[in-house]
């Protein structure tokens, strides 16, 4: 909320500088987000008084004025017509530079000397009115700088009012807090005016058909008002609060709204059929045109203010076009009411219409202040719009709200806060915010809650007030007794950390992707009713599109060598379940040069075996032992010849492969990209926790190599398995060390070279013994897989 420093000072004396006040308010729970200085930059513009006025001898539309600044008389030629002799005006003298760029000089206009200019609000940029010159209130000190005479210099506080404090959505509410902080007295304006003789009950009536939605409705009536501009200071204050001035009557209702926090509404009394008010619910499907000209569909729980035959306002939210105060209005009915907060909020949401009024009603206004604010409005209308007030007010209050009484235990207060506050101090704090406090027993007090503090309804609410008023920073800082816990992280959390560490050590950068997505390769996706953007309208079912998008961003920025991963959640809807299933997935992408651009590494591109190697390292690092890769042509987004299903202990836990170019086109990518995606929850289940080491042999191993030429269709694993099957227990390890195609190998064939490690754990092997075993193995192998030995 925007709060003017000058306006505040009308209700409480403030000795503090604006920034000190801001600090104090923040520490009292009213966070001041900014303080901006209002600077007019007006020099040589002073208060003047027109002492004589006559027509310009040589021009019909101009007049010749003598303007006094106390010590001096100036001759001023003026083109406006709204002033008379005796008016106080803003006089710009020679040397003044107006905000619109006009420089004031002594000059002759049509032969007459003009020593300055009488300005309009608009010319001084202190208001919007440009119809005539600005007429000031009488009695200002002549010759005084206009900025200080009109209190134009101000500070606007932008204060964040939390939803529990609707009482502070008003200048007086904030002033009350300042009074409590600084120990000053709150000065509420005196409300006095002359009532007419005619009783209001004779002129109008109010009926409430729904006391639940409208517990209280009051009205006053002022006849014969003159609609026009409200006084300069009032318009200026409204503008400082961010409210656009409209006309004097409407401005008064808004002024009181800002002053006391009570929304009011003014009706053109003559436009109310049967000159009465009926408060009742609308019918479903009714249409109503609100003040802003919008046609609004109504519901059976929309509370409407009606006249004798039709709705004239949406209760607590916005008035109607059909009863609006206009230039022709001469009789006005002013409404001051208390509406059911929850229903106002529901209606406001349904209509998609939030106003200054609905914002306050839905948080709860001061039900006890309804009449006071009504009278304040009547007073100001009489002051600034003329007219005559009917005698008394209408006050329908079918379901009265009574002030609450809450007991507060000082012991409990201290127990929750960790303080040792004395009862006397607690009482002083509560009395400082106008609460009525009486002793109940040695420990307890009984607190009567004023009507403007609806947020206080439990003991804990009072404890918070005590803490707030004593100052949070005065509460001693202590350390609780801490429990010794067995384990901070569960095994899955530990495994996540390890997986991230291992991938990072292999060059993968971890990324953070939005869980929101557009692709939905799976049918059971969860969609968002109110997405911010079309491409963030479902909860992701896979991390791959996010990785590809990340790659796209990076390729755009010329980052071409990428290894990325994310460990994150995916979502599937589950039949008959309210909440979707959430699953952790681990996905990675690799593309570009294996070692990046470097003067010393060969510029080789990443291929399938790089990402497969990453997976092998990952599994071993996470103690996932029994894994294997099965070729598959069936994954729609992966190259059929370069993709694989990943199995662990006969369970499928993921896929790996090269992304199909057709998929990449959608991302405007053309690079070779390799990805894997793993079901991390399954990985957690298959990690092997009680790992035991294999003993080391004390005896030297013997290595023998074997190179086989085989058909392209024969796979490494076929031969590996064959060797494994044929070998005796002395074969300790089989490793492939060369895969060769080209010269000396026929087309359609390849050479696979294996190195076999012979190892005993009991004795030293001899060459002869190993040669025998190896030769037997080779000949068996040749026979079994139809291979030829490469010489």
């Amino acid at each position: 909320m925007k709060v003017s420093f000058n306006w505040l000072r009308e209700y409480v004396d403030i000795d503090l500088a604006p920034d000190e006040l801001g600090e104090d308010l923040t520490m009292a729970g009213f966070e001041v987000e900014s303080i901006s200085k209002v600077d007019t930059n007006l020099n040589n513009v002073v208060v003047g008084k027109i002492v004589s006025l006559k027509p310009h001898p040589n021009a019909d539309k101009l007049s010749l004025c003598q303007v006094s600044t106390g010590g001096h008389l100036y001759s001023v030629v003026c083109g406006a017509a709204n002033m008379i002799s005796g008016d106080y005006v803003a006089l710009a003298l020679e040397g003044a530079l107006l905000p619109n760029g006009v420089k004031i000089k002594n000059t002759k206009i049509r032969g007459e000397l003009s020593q300055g200019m009488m300005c309009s609000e608009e010319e001084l940029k202190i208001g919007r009115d440009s119809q005539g010159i600005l007429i000031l209130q009488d009695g200002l000190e002549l010759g005084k700088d206009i900025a200080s005479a009109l209190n134009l210099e101000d500070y606007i506080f932008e204060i964040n009012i939390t939803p529990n404090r609707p009482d502070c959505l008003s200048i007086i509410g904030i002033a009350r807090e300042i009074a409590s902080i600084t120990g000053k007295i709150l000065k509420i304006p005196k409300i006095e005016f002359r009532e007419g003789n005619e009783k209001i009950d004779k002129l109008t009536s109010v009926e409430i058909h729904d006391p639940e939605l409208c517990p209280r409705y009051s009205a006053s009536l002022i006849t014969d008002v003159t609609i026009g501009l409200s006084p300069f200071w009032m318009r200026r204050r409204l503008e400082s609060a961010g409210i656009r001035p409209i006309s004097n009557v409407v401005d008064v209702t808004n002024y009181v709204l800002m002053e006391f926090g009570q929304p009011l509404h003014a009706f053109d009394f003559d436009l109310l059929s049967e000159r009465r008010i009926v408060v009742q619910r609308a019918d479903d499907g009714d249409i109503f045109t609100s003040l802003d000209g919008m046609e609004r569909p109504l519901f059976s729980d929309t509370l409407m203010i009606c006249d004798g035959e039709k709705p004239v306002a949406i209760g607590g939210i916005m008035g109607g076009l059909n009863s609006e105060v206009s230039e022709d209005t001469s009789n006005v009915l002013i409404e001051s009411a208390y509406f059911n907060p929850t229903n106002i909020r529901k209606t406001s949401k349904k209509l998609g219409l939030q106003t200054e009024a609905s914002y306050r009603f839905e948080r709860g206004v001061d039900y006890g202040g309804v009449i006071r604010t009504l009278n304040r409005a009547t007073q100001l209308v009489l002051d600034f719009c003329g007219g005559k007030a009917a005698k008394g007010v209408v006050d329908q209050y079918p379901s009265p709200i009574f002030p609450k009484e809450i007991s507060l235990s000082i012991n409990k207060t201290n127990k929750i806060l960790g303080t040792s506050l004395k009862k006397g101090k607690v009482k002083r704090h509560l009395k400082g915010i106008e609460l009525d406090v009486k002793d109940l027993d040695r420990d307890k007090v009984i607190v009567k809650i004023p009507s403007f503090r609806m947020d206080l309804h439990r003991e804990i609410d009072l404890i918070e007030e005590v803490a707030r008023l004593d100052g949070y920073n005065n509460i001693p800082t202590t350390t609780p007794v801490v429990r010794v816990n067995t384990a901070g992280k569960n095994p899955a959390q530990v495994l996540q950390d390890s997986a991230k560490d291992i991938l990072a050590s292999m060059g993968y950068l971890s990324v953070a992707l939005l869980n929101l997505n557009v692709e939905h390769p799976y049918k059971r996706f969860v969609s968002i009713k109110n997405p911010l953007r079309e491409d963030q309208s479902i909860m992701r079912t896979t991390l791959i599109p996010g990785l590809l998008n990340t790659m796209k961003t990076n390729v755009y920025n010329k980052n071409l060598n990428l290894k990325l991963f994310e460990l994150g959640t995916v979502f599937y809807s589950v039949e008959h379940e309210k909440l979707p299933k959430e699953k952790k997935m681990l996905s990675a992408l690799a593309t570009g040069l294996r070692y990046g651009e470097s003067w010393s590494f060969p510029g080789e591109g990443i291929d399938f075996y790089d990402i497969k190697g990453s997976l092998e390292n990952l599994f071993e690092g996470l103690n996932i032992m029994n894994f294997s890769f099965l070729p598959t042509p069936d994954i729609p987004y992966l190259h059929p010849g370069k993709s694989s299903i990943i199995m662990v202990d006969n369970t499928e836990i993921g896929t790996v492969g090269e992304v199909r170019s057709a998929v990449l086109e959608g991302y405007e990518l053309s690079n070779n990209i390799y990805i894997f995606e793993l079901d991390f929850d399954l990985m957690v289940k298959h990690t092997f926790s009680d790992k035991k080491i294999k003993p080391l042999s004390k005896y030297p191993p013997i290595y023998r190599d074997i190179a086989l030429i085989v058909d392209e269709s024969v796979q490494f694993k076929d031969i590996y398995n064959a060797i494994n099957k044929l070998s005796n227990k002395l074969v300790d390890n089989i490793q492939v060390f060369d895969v060769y195609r080209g010269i000396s190998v026929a087309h359609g064939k390849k050479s696979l070279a294996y190195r076999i490690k012979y190892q005993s754990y009991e004795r030293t092997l001899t060459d002869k013994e190993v040669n025998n075993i190896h030769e037997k193995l080779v000949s068996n192998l040749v026979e079994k897989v139809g291979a030829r030995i490469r010489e």
Partner: protein
Amino acid sequence: MKEELERLFAEALAKLKSAVEERQVAEIKTEFLGKKGKITALLRGLVNISQEQRPVMGRLTNEVKVSLEEKIKESLAGIRERKRKEDLLHESLDITLPGRRVPIGRKHPITEVCNEIIGIFLGLGFQISEGPEVELDYYNFEALNIPKDHPARDMHDTFYISDEVLLRTHTSPVQIRVMEKQSPPIQIIAPGKAFRCDSDVSHTPMFHQVEGLMVGNNITFGDLKGILTIFVHQMFGDKTRLRFRPSFFPFTEPSAEVDMQCVICRGKGCRVCSFSGWLEILGSGMVDPEVFKIVGYNPNEITGFAFGLGIERVAMLKYGINDIRMFFENDMRFLGQF
């Protein structure tokens, strides 16, 4: 003969002195000490001298031989040392060329900061809890004392899946889920993702929070201040000043916003802290009795505090990042810096 011996010794030393290569030293060795060497010859000639002179001359000749061998060794060592130095000189590399780096990966700054935060609270005896990201309205709002049609819902721009299901707007629902399952004392943190439909320089539709909850028999507001002070001191240095100021959250009362002294300007005032010298870092408060009632605890016996902090916010302050969206753009040039 003695003179002859001394002359030969002197001659050998002179030659050694001018020798610059190992080969020359070897030649000198052969010339004087080899099988046919000059000194070897003298030794052999000892048979020709008188019986009583022989031991004296023998010892003398031997001494010269030993001493020459010593000198030859020294000379060789000297030459080798010179040679090694020369070789090293020729072998020198351009050590200013960049090293051969196998690219290593990095963890995302959010992960790093989150781990740091978790580490601090694990050290204080907290356990880690988790909850779903797609959550029931009940856990996200109602059980946290935010009924439907409460104005506090305005503080949360919520993504809805259905009337009852939404993307959690904070990590606070984990509080309820934990308290429903466990009885006090409870001491947990719950790191995780949260969602709000909001997107600008300081908001992303998804962000990360760490929730904390400590509940027991005698937990006070002073304890809340104590734990959070320890946290901020460990995270940002123990000279960092803190202040607690009143605020409003429907599920805590009293509620407190925690500000810490601006880490950029050290409290003097700068753009980051809007010239206030303070930065908002945490929301916190004593668990509202309403919440205890909802989970079936007796609010007359049990007290506790809860807090929540934004991980992005902490990471932004720690690394001087001014646009929250950078975390989710995943530009390698950004990620590679952590």
